[in-house]
Structures are given as structure tokens and as C-alpha cells.
């Protein structure tokens, strides 16, 4: 890893901001451009960048592959659970109006929870796809550069 000195320094500088930006896109999504899909991709891309520069094994220490089997269905459960919760509260499936005291508050709460579910699943899927492909070959060693 000595070879990639510039890439290591710059990525170490950038990755926290990429994660922060993903959270901004996620939770500001109902007021501005953004939402669960975009935030999930940005959040996953931060881990992909980390894995590209430090190697897949190091990245799997930071983000164990066993988490993926929990994260991907968890997001789907959050999405579907919101729909079922609004069914139980007397609305139709994914009818956000009944989730809070006022319809406007319910819309706010519902869209944030649903987008969070989407974000969790998309993050998991992006990282899972990358690990599945990148884990198939050995890392490029320093001597090969």
C-alpha cells in the first residue's frame, strides 16, 4: 500500500465528508434534491473507495460482510413495515396521513422513515455487489505496480 501515498492521504481526507454528505442527502431529501437511493449510493461509494485503496480485506474489517445479510432485508422491512403500520392505524398501504397526529406531520414522518429504509437497502446492495466482484480476485500487490 506504500505505492498509493497520494490516494491514501486524499481519500482519508475525503471519506468522512462523503459519509456526511450521504447523510445530508438522506435526511434533507424531503426538502431538497436527494433521497434514499442517492444517499445509499453515496454512502456505499465511500466504502467502495475505501476498499479500492486499502484493499477488500481491510474494508471487510471496517464493514464485515456478515452485516450485509442483516442490512439489506432490514431496509426492506422498514419500508414494508411503514406500509403495514399505516394499514394497522386505519389507512391504506403506505398512507402516511395516519402515522402522526396531523396529516402533514404524518407525511413528513412517513417519507423520512421510508427513505431511510431505501437508503439502508441501497447501501447494503452497493457494498454487497462490490464485495462479491472484488473478492473474487486477489489484491494487486505493491511489487506488481
Amino acid at each position, binding site marked *: 500500500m506504500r505505492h498509493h501515498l497520494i*490516494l491514501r492521504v*486524499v481519500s482519508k*481526507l*475525503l471519506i468522512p465528508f462523503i459519509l456526511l454528505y450521504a447523510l445530508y442527502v438522506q435526511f434533507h431529501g424531503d426538502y431538497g434534491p436527494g433521497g434514499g437511493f442517492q444517499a445509499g449510493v453515496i454512502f456505499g461509494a465511500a466504502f467502495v473507495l475505501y476498499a479500492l485503496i486499502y484493499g477488500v480485506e481491510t474494508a471487510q474489517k471496517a464493514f464485515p460482510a456478515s452485516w450485509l445479510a442483516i442490512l439489506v432485508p432490514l431496509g426492506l422491512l422498514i419500508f414494508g413495515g411503514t406500509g403495514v403500520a399505516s394499514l394497522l392505524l386505519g389507512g391504506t398501504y403506505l398512507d402516511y396521513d395516519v402515522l402522526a397526529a396531523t396529516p402533514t406531520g404524518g407525511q413528513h414522518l412517513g417519507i423520512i422513515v421510508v427513505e431511510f429504509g431505501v437508503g439502508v437497502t441501497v447501501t447494503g446492495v452497493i457494498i454487497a455487489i462490490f464485495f462479491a466482484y472484488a473478492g473474487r480476485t486477489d489484491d494487486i500487490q505493491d511489487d506488481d*505496480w
Partner: protein
Amino acid sequence: MQLLIDILSWGFILAGVFFVFTGTLGMLRLPDFYTRLHGAGITDTLGTELLLIAMMLQAGWSLVTVKLAMISLFIFFTSPTATHALANAANAVGLRPFGVPAKDLEPGKREKR
């Protein structure tokens, strides 16, 4: 005051456009990968920074200026890094620079760190 800001930002916009145009011209006209990277990599960073400075002058003291400052900071770091990564990868797979004879690039002579 507004006139001064307008003149300044016009100056920055024209300078930025000049650099981006030069980079594009280099991208189209230069002979090989390394020289094209040289043309586009340097001018792109400076041109974008100048355009962002012009936008910041137009936006005044507001949240937009802070966002533009963040964008320019990240471009300042990422754009040269991307150029470096591209050139490094091309060198690693043994792409020969334009006009350099093959015997000058024997594997033993290549710098290893």
C-alpha cells in the same frame, strides 16, 4: 459596489472559460494519453476554481457561497488526485509516452518505490 463585483466576476468567468477552453483544445489536439492528461488535468482544476470564485462573488454572503466554497475545496483536492491516479495507472500497465523510444523505457529503468 455592485458594478465592481460584476466586473470582477466577469473577469473571473472569462479567465475560467479561457482555461477550460484551453484544456478542451488540448484534449482534442494533443497526440497521446499523457499529453492529453497534462492538458486537461491542470487547466480543468484552475478553470473550475475561477468559475466557482466568480459564482461566489455573485452569490454574496449567503449559504450558497458556503456550499460553493466547499465544492471548490473538494475539487481542489480531488481533480489533481484523479489525474494522478490515471497517469499512475497508465504508467503501471506500461503505456509508452508519445515520442519516447522504446529502449528508454526498459523495465529495469523504471523507478520503483
